[in-house]
């Protein structure tokens, strides 16, 4: 079969450019990866994790499961384009190889197959003609939706879409043209030779009725080749680089590689895996409440990729984690923000003034945290509950104490945070406690993730729930209707969603909002954002209150002292901490006095 014409060149040049640029990048990434990470790849490839990699690549890169969760129509659009095109490539390759009886045919054989192959008498032609046309229709439906999305993004659940850079535009325009041009070229050829399936043959016969298909055919194939070639050339410099890079990302992530405190080549791979879908823009409260799109993660990753990170942008993020929660690629967006902060600021610290005291020994260590000290009602409630339950506890930071280190970490100063962690860790260990209880969600997050404590760390909502479950305290239920606000650091940060709700359901009636659990909003008081001023934080908070009040609750309950303080500023209904609710609902004298509990009785 003669399968060469000069018009295959744009396609071939595009394809080879893409392959060379991409593999040069991959080689560079892997070469400069930290040694530990390279070893993880070596081990991972030889392990069973590889099956998981293949499964995730299928589910995420082709089916786009996570986008389906955000919006089914958006998911379908991505699936039809990715999975449809993938099947077209696989089946097209199979068709050309079977027809030419040549396993090692050229890459353009399947692409321009219809132009070179005119007879349709082979026994498998009917199958391929039908399937290929069906798949083309499937992809075209996605292309149509992509056009529609430009005009009416709200239909796809998106309020804002990403603003594109030059190469993105070039790539998207050629991508939009590829499949309609393929349809046109194949139809015109089929109009002459009747070698197409239901779609191309039907359209071809129709066009042949009033058009000189014989003259137009060659031009159409040229345009088709040009559009594919242009897309391939633009791909490595555009957002579509995520298509090949995401496969690499999924594999490496499954092998246990992470972005931690430094920017490695794995972080670079994460940055290149960002498809700039823009889902994070809508999720960001800086956009929805303040109308400021700039800090959205998609644009931030853009600046990292272009190596133009500005301090203002990296500090202008609340680290609430909503973008990361909904990111279809699963990029560790919060870490990226902190790593860039770490690069920017002077990481000085001088904590020589911290002197470890000798705390009393007890079974339970209670750490209130800075923010709880600013909201003494929570502290009082906790002490009341601890005493009511007759627990043997020590109040670790009764006289103030040092900060837990999380705010320092959020500012990007990992080294300073490490010192504070070391100091507090020693203090906690010296108390010889078996359980550490904290009433601050921010402290809880850092205790859980960075302290590496050989004891059980409980947030006060978890701890009190254990007390209630084991009957150490009994509480009265009232008919009060309240809404529970998930603090970012406790919810998305530490995945504690159900315990506070279960505990509250013992004391009052919970009503839901549209923003529960993973979808919870940040109160606006965030310690993560260092740029936001008082008014802006208030504005965000006022917007959150609006969402909280949809079902007319009589009270707002939260589990973080900072959230409580922030909500208080604009409160239309009382705001209380979960500990205060329980302290008020505790029945009088449920337990014998001086009864000391063993920790295993309290918490498993």
């Amino acid at each position, binding site marked *: 079969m003669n399968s060469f014409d000069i018009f295959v060149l744009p396609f071939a040049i595009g394809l080879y450019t893409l392959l060379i640029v991409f593999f040069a990048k991959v080689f560079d990434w892997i070469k400069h990866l930290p040694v530990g990470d390279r070893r993880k790849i070596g081990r991972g490839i030889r392990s069973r994790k590889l099956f998981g990699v293949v499964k995730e690549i299928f589910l995420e890169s082709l089916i786009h499961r996570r986008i389906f969760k955000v919006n089914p129509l958006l998911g379908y659009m991505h699936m039809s384009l990715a999975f449809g095109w993938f099947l077209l490539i696989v089946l097209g390759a199979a068709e050309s190889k079977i027809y030419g009886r040549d396993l090692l045919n050229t890459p353009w054989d399947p692409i321009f197959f219809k132009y070179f192959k005119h007879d349709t008498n082979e026994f498998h032609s009917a199958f391929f003609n039908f399937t290929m046309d069906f798949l083309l229709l499937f992809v075209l439906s996605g292309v149509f939706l992509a056009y529609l999305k430009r005009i009416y993004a709200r239909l796809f659940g998106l309020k804002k879409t990403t603003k594109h850079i030059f190469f993105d535009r070039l790539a998207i325009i050629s991508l939009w043209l590829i499949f309609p041009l393929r349809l046109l070229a194949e139809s015109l050829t089929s109009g002459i030779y009747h070698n197409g399936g239901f779609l191309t043959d039907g359209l071809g016969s129709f066009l042949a009725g009033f058009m000189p298909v014989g003259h137009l055919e060659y031009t159409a194939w040229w345009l088709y080749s040009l559009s594919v070639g242009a897309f391939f050339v633009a791909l490595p410099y555009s957002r579509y680089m995520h298509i090949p890079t995401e496969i690499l990302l999924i594999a490496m992530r499954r092998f246990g590689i992470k972005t931690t405190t430094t920017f490695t080549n794995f972080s670079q791979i994460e940055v290149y895996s960002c498809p700039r879908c823009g889902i994070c823009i809508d999720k960001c409260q800086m956009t929805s409440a303040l109308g400021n799109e700039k800090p959205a993660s998609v644009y931030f990753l853009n600046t990292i990729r272009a190596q133009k990170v500005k301090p203002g942008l990296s500090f202008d993020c609340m680290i609430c984690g909503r973008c990361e929660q909904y990111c279809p690629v699963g990029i560790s967006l919060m870490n990226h923000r902190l790593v860039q902060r770490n690069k920017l600021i002077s990481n000085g610290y001088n904590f020589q003034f911290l002197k470890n005291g000798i705390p009393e020994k007890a079974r339970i260590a209670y750490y209130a945290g800075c923010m709880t000290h*600013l909201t003494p009602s929570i502290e009082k409630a906790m002490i009341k509950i601890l005493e009511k339950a007759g627990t043997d506890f020590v109040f670790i930071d009764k006289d103030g104490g040092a900060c837990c280190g999380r705010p320092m970490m959020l500012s990007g100063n990992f080294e300073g945070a490490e010192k504070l962690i070391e100091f507090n860790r020693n203090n906690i260990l010296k108390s010889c406690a078996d359980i550490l209880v904290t009433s601050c969600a921010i402290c809880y997050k850092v205790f859980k993730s960075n302290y590496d404590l050989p004891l059980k760390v409980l947030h006060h909502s978890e701890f009190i729930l254990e007390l209630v479950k084991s009957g150490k305290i009994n509480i009265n239920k009232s008919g009060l209707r309240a809404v529970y606000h998930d603090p970012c650091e406790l919810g998305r940060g530490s995945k504690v969603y159900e315990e506070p709700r279960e505990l509250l359901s013992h004391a009052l009636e919970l009503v839901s909002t549209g923003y529960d659990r993973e979808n919870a909003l940040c109160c606006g008081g965030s310690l993560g954002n*260092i740029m936001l001023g008082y008014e802006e934080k208030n504005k965000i908070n006022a917007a959150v209150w609006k969402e909280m009040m949809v079902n007319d609750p009589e009270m707002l309950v939260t589990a973080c002292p900072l959230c409580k303080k922030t909500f208080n500023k604009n409160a239309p209904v009382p705001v209380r901490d979960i500990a205060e609710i329980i302290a008020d609902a505790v029945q009088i004298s449920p337990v014998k006095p001086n009864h000391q509990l063993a920790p295993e009785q309290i918490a498993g």
Partner: protein
Amino acid sequence: MNQDWGYGINKDRQIDFDRNDRRLAEYIRKYVPSYKLCISCGACTATCSTANLTDFYNIRRLNIFLMRGEIDEIAKHIDKCMFCGKCELVCPRGVNTRQVILIMKEGIKKIKQNEQL
């Protein structure tokens, strides 16, 4: 417990305001406009975790140094800040104190490297 509220009289000495180094103060005013709202009430210092644990450091005193242009003194103490953010929460004027500290650190770094502020 040592409660230095920052109202203690600073040591007697001559301050030459003609040679006052205002670079850092102006730098902060430029990037943290809310800093102009400060009335030196001392609420930040009263709540400061570090002030509670040290004899000297407190954010209000840093403010005085800043106004007097005593950048070396600030550089000596600024790194004691733990960034906990209590000062920001209690500030009655809504000054973004954490940003002040951050910009101060950045400014000092630039001054040490003889960069233009």
